[in-house]
């Protein structure tokens, strides 16, 4: 599903690469934890999958498509098949919770009837029932994160990328979120999740890829968070 082949990414005006000759294969239906210290390149890895950034060298294939050869015109179609929870949420500040979630469906032209049915279900799934008409700045940090979560998987994407989806959520809610992610994963969706939450990684026992200074230092199939803790 996701193939990184010797990928190097150096941001403009930086000398140290954010990703350094990284090669990974993620198969369809896998659940992968991306761990590593702050600044090790986890978010960069996810951004490359979305073609939000372009690699300096190496090839990336997502869903069978070579991203380097994908025309700008086709990029939106790729992104519609990938759900993404961003580290900084990226909610539309002028739309309420319902509209933010519905937006991901409206963009891809789903009929209104379908939207009306699915969106409330997903909002309930992340535990925000009754807050559908709040604006993002009327929500707590964790609530915003859950809206981002809902938006990412409302259109049942093939791949779900999650950048620290539990960073601002209390452990109890986190477990709820992880259960949802697990359920989504079981329906066949590939999940890649960057996280610092040792407890979650340890309890899930899924594949763990560890980055350090842009290099892969560990790739374990049923791993734990790591030694540091």
């Amino acid at each position: 599903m996701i193939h990184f082949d010797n990928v190097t990414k150096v941001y403009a005006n930086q000398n140290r690469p954010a990703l350094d000759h990284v090669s990974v294969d993620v198969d369809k239906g896998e659940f992968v934890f991306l761990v590593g210290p702050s600044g090790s390149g986890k978010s960069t890895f996810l951004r490359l999958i979305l073609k939000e950034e372009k690699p300096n060298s190496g090839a990336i294939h997502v869903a069978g498509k070579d991203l380097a050869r994908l025309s700008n015109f086709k990029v939106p179609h790729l992104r519609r098949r990938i759900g993404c929870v961003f580290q900084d949420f990226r909610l539309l500040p002028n739309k309420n919770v319902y509209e933010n979630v519905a937006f991901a469906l409206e963009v891809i032209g789903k009929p209104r009837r379908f939207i009306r049915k699915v969106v409330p279900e997903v909002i309930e799934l992340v535990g925000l029932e009754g807050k559908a008409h709040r604006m993002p700045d009327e929500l707590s940090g964790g609530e915003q994160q859950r809206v981002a979560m809902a938006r990412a998987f409302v259109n049942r994407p093939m791949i779900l990328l999650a950048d620290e989806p539990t960073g601002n959520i209390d452990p109890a809610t986190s477990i709820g979120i992880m259960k949802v992610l697990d359920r989504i994963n079981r329906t066949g969706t590939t999940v890649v999740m960057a996280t610092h939450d040792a407890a979650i990684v340890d309890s899930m026992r899924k594949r763990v890829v560890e980055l350090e200074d842009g290099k892969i230092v560990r790739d374990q199939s049923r791993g734990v968070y790591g030694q540091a803790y």
Partner: protein
Amino acid sequence: MRANFILSEVWIGLRRNLTMTIAVIVTVAVAMALLGVGLMINAQVGLMKTFWSDKVEVSVYLCKKDSPFPTCKATPKGVSAAERGQLQQQLGALPQVAQVLFEDQAMAFENFKKTQSANSILAQVVEAKDLPESLRVKLKDPEQYQAVIDAAKGMKGVSTVIDQRAQLENFFGMLEKLRYAALAVALILVLAAILLIGNTVRLSAFNRRRETGIMRLVGASNLYIQLPFVMEGMIAGLIGGVVAAIMLIVAKVFLFEGTTSAFAVNSQLGWDSVAEVITLTMVIGVVICVLASFVTLRRYLRV
């Protein structure tokens, strides 16, 4: 991509960026109204010029008895009817001349009284027999008066040749200046409008770069992202154009009709030319807005 979703996005955009929208409307309205006034002044001046040019003739005055003009030395008894007929023929044969009419002393006196009405005293002191006879020469092309004047001056029995155009030249010079000034101001304003609108659209895009960035990451196509901006620009441009049209109609009624009647000119700018000007400014306004939107967005909304 459902049409009514896009329309609702446009509507939300217009309302949310109300001050933006108003700014574009005001800019378009002011610039287009002034461009329109410039074009109307231009048309009006053109009209007045042709109106006057049509009226203008070259007056060839004939020698009277004992006329003190040096050119009349040859005909001390004045010009006879035969000589006059000959002159008339000679002038009519010139390629530039359309028509030659004879104005006798009675007609000259009539005309004199008409034009001198403001100065009623003169009308009392001048009698018909004091006035010279003349041949009124109408030209095919009013610009080519010089050749006719030169030709007429050399003819026997001609006391003096007066081109009424010379008397109007000052007036026309001023009108021309007015026309160029109006067009120059209008042009500056249109440039300013392009700058301001481009700027406004850019700010609008900049303000919403977060939103558009999110749209892109969620998989919205480029067209989908740009359409609301361009349509907002178009709608604002249209409204601005309508406001400008209203201002132009007001200008036509109060300014132009007033001024031209003061000039005692019945070469009024017709409603058809006003309609033309309004259509033109409206189209320019909308095109400016759409172009400014597109060009600006090119830079801001890259994938």
